[in-house]
């Protein structure tokens, strides 16, 4: 052994000349390693493949010239964004429009997006390791680099890093952000935006301070065990409580509740059986379904999602409470989105009976609770504190704790070393977030996060919204971000303001940036409509758009209330863009009216969407115009025809670039549509 080693040494380095030769040879080989590695590198291989691919195409010469303008390693360097991308070294054809039929990677054409590669690079949207020059290191997480490529299903998250407002092209991100606020995630988890504000929840979990007025302990128990058995649309998550825990929490909540005066007033006893059909039609006329859903026999949920689902409401609420609530919901909950309908006593008993009849005998069939002991109540209080119920609900004597759950402001960039993955899970942030939302307790049965019932698309949307919360999103220069419109806390003043709060106008209408989108924006309503029409409408809302299923309900307003509201709207909600009185309501020359009619039916063909003559016209995309001359203001019509989007941003009425003469003639024609005298008389 020793001998042979010595022999080898002798052969190689026996004499100085030979040693010199051998060392030189080794040196040459060593020196050749780097160029060889370069020569056989992956990216050269892809560039060669690309050349072969384009060689057989019709525009090979052009493509080759583009390629040779910058071959070798490519880099996009954007110091302001912190981008160093070499992806275009292999992804050579990203900008070659003629490669639209190529489907093999890495040579595909990049689909159309609103940004250019040179402005944004690749990792801004796709993540991954920009500076890497091998496939493995660029796309996957390696020991040194842990940021893998973002899967395509979450790519909208990247838009959300800069864009805080909803975008047309990112429905999934928009949905995810809505869900974050709507499913109450942000009650427990703080999410701060780069400007320092926090995302606010948009759900309004009910206060539990007076819960015993509203419902029974048995219902609370059944609800706690599985909220979705009561209502499939319930956003309340399942805490997977054991029977004794649910028993104790329900005991605590009932014993902790304080009564509200009026909730216990007896339901006016009726001698005859309740008229359910009349109740059903009152439910329909009051347009309760605009906000409340009911599950029909086929299992479909029909109705709005502003208020809670009412499929089994009779099994939940006490009739006394229900009647008091329908009489004036603001007594029980001052901030509720439910309007204060001025129902008459007979209407109240009709609705109470109709809703009370919506029961499900199975719901509470197996719930048998013995009287609560003080120990159970004390244990219930402990559980309520531990599970953070007060993060969402107001509960007497229990304070909402700040930072109840981990803050999620930078969850999209959470270092992988800080995450405990489940066995078999891909070690990547998106997989972790999705798994956490899908089944929070799979990460440990002692965890507090409850089980939400979400569809796969909703889980993807939430994951997308959370993935947008990255270090980059927080640290980008402010000039490069597109902030959302600041939330409006507009509050109408005075008596009318109180009346609008009482009627919950903002649940459906938006004014000055605050409010819902179910009904038209009323910011310039005073410039738009005529006083008499508004007064009549508030008293008895008619139908402007026959095809809509959601309409303005009748609140039984008093004359004084109607005048109060009308005065306020006509005075305050005025557009500064034009003078309301600049055009007359009547007295247009017949020739001009006739010219307007011609324009209406031929040049602009307005009848495709609007009805002026009920005998001939059929379009019902836009509002019916049979009485538009008694409804709208002439100057408003004129300006609306000229620039509809300026008058009401987002309206689908197309801007026809109308000249003055046409707009004036059409205004004259429309102002002549006063409605039949019969309809007038009816009012």
């Amino acid at each position, binding site marked *: 052994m020793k001998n042979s080693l010595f022999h080898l040494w002798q052969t190689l380095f026996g004499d100085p000349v030979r040693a010199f030769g051998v060392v030189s040879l080794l040196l040459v080989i060593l020196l050749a390693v780097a160029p060889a590695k370069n020569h056989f590198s992956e990216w050269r291989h892809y560039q060669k493949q690309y050349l072969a691919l384009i060689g057989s*195409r019709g525009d090979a010469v052009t493509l080759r010239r583009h390629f040779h303008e910058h071959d070798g390693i490519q880099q996009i360097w954007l110091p302001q964004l912190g981008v160093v991308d070499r992806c275009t070294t292999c992804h050579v054809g990203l900008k070659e429009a003629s490669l639209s039929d190529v489907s093999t990677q890495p040579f595909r054409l990049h689909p159309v997006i609103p940004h250019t590669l040179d402005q944004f690079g690749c990792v801004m949207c796709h993540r991954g390791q920009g500076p890497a020059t091998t496939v493995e290191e660029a796309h996957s997480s390696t020991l040194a680099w842990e940021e893998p490529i973002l899967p395509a299903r979450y790519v909208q998250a990247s838009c959300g890093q800069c864009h805080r407002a909803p975008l047309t092209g990112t429905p999934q991100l928009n949905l995810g952000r809505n869900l974050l606020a709507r499913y109450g995630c942000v009650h427990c988890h703080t999410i701060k935006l780069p400007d320092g504000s926090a995302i606010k929840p948009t759900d309004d979990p009910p206060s539990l301070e007076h819960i015993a007025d509203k419902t029974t302990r048995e219902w609370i128990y059944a609800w706690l065990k599985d909220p979705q058995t009561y209502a499939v649309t319930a956003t309340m998550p399942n805490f997977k409580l054991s029977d004794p825990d649910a028993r104790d929490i329900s005991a605590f909540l009932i014993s902790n509740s304080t009564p509200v005066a009026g909730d216990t007033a007896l339901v006016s006893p009726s001698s005859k059986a309740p008229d359910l059909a009349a109740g059903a039609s009152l439910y329909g006329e009051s347009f309760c379904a605009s906000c409340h859903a009911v599950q029909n026999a086929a299992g479909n949920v029909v109705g709005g999602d502003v208020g809670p689902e009412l499929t089994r409401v009779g099994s939940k609420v006490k009739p006394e409470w229900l009647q008091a609530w329908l009489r004036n919901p603001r007594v029980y909950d001052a901030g509720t989105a439910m309007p204060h309908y001025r129902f008459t006593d007979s209407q109240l008993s009709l609705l109470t009976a109709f809703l009370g009849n919506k029961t499900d005998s199975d719901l509470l069939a197996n719930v048998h609770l013995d009287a609560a002991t003080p120990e159970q109540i004390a244990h219930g209080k402990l559980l309520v504190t531990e599970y953070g119920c007060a993060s969402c609900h107001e509960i007497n004597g229990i304070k909402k704790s700040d930072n109840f759950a981990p803050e999620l402001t930078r969850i999209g960039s959470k270092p992988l070393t800080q995450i405990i993955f489940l066995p078999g899970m891909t070690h990547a942030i998106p997989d972790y977030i999705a798994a956490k939302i899908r089944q929070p307790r799979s990460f440990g049965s002692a965890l507090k996060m409850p089980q939400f019932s979400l569809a796969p698309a909703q889980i993807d949307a939430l994951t997308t919204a959370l993935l947008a919360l990255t270090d980059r999103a927080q640290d980008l220069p402010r000039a490069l971000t597109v902030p959302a419109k600041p939330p409006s806390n507009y509050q109408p003043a005075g008596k009318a303001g109180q009346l609008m709060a009482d009627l919950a106008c903002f649940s459906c209408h938006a004014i000055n940036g605050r409010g819902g989108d179910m009904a038209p924006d009323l910011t310039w309503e005073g410039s738009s409509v005529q006083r008499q029409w508004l007064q009549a409408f508030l008293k008895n809302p008619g139908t402007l758009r026959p095809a809509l299923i959601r309409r303005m309900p009748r609140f039984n307003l008093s004359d004084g209330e109607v005048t109060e509201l009308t005065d306020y709207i006509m005075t305050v909600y005025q557009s500064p863009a034009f003078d309301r009185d600049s055009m007359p309501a009547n007295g247009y020359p017949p020739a001009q009216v006739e010219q307007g009619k011609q324009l209406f039916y031929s040049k602009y063909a307005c009848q495709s969407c609007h009805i002026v003559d009920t005998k001939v016209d059929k379009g019902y995309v836009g509002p019916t115009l049979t009485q538009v001359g008694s409804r709208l203001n002439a100057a408003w019509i004129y300006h609306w025809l000229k620039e509809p989007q300026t008058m009401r941003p987002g309206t689908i009425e197309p801007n*026809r*670039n109308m000249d003055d003469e046409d707009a004036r003639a059409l205004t004259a024609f429309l102002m002549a549509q006063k409605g039949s005298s019969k309809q007038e008389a009816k009012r």
Partner: protein
Amino acid sequence: MKRRRRILLVLSLILVGAACSSKPGPASTLKPTGFGVALVESSGGKQVGATGMVLGDPLVVQVNDEQGTAVAGALVEFSGPAGVSFDPTSGLTDSSGQVSTNVALGSMAGRYQLTAHTSTRAQKSVDLKIEEIALGYQQEVGFQLDNKYCARCHNPESTPERVSNYDNLEVKPHPFTEGNTLNKMSDADLTAIISHGGPALNKSALMPAYGYTLSKTEIEALISYIRLVSDPPYHAAGMVYAQK
């Protein structure tokens, strides 16, 4: 004694090695208890979704026997082009003969042909082709614009939320899926009719001009959406390349 220990050690090493190297078994370890001869689509075909994302509705297929009655317990496997994922990838039919799966399409916009597969008792394979459409960013924008501005008239189907105006129009608009008509119109024609209204192409004035409402980019997005959903599929005219 020592030797025995060594053998044990070697054996256990081999076992550990085998356990580590064994690949996870094929997804379908399900054993079919029923066999049918035909596969039909119940729902979830021809959906329009976004690239890489889970389609709104699950894909549901049904296995039938010779008499056309539903077969329970038949094994159905789903497959599709690269990038498409199914959850689950296979399943046994329920008592009504149906299997349901959630589909996420690949990352490229376009049409995806999916296959549902089952075997007869005689191991003859039965395939069902289902087509879904994935919208890229541009087409997604077009889809949203269609929903807002166009569908009220161009989509004949009504929902309670949106009643179609199609039947009320004297001259019927072309639904965007009507490839036989729309494929014959060039991008320039479509741009003209959207921007300047029907009269631009000697068509009905009931189609209003949107050139002052929609931007150039939005009109391009709309056209790219129309091209993607047209049936039969649209093929852009252009250079024909030598194929290898």
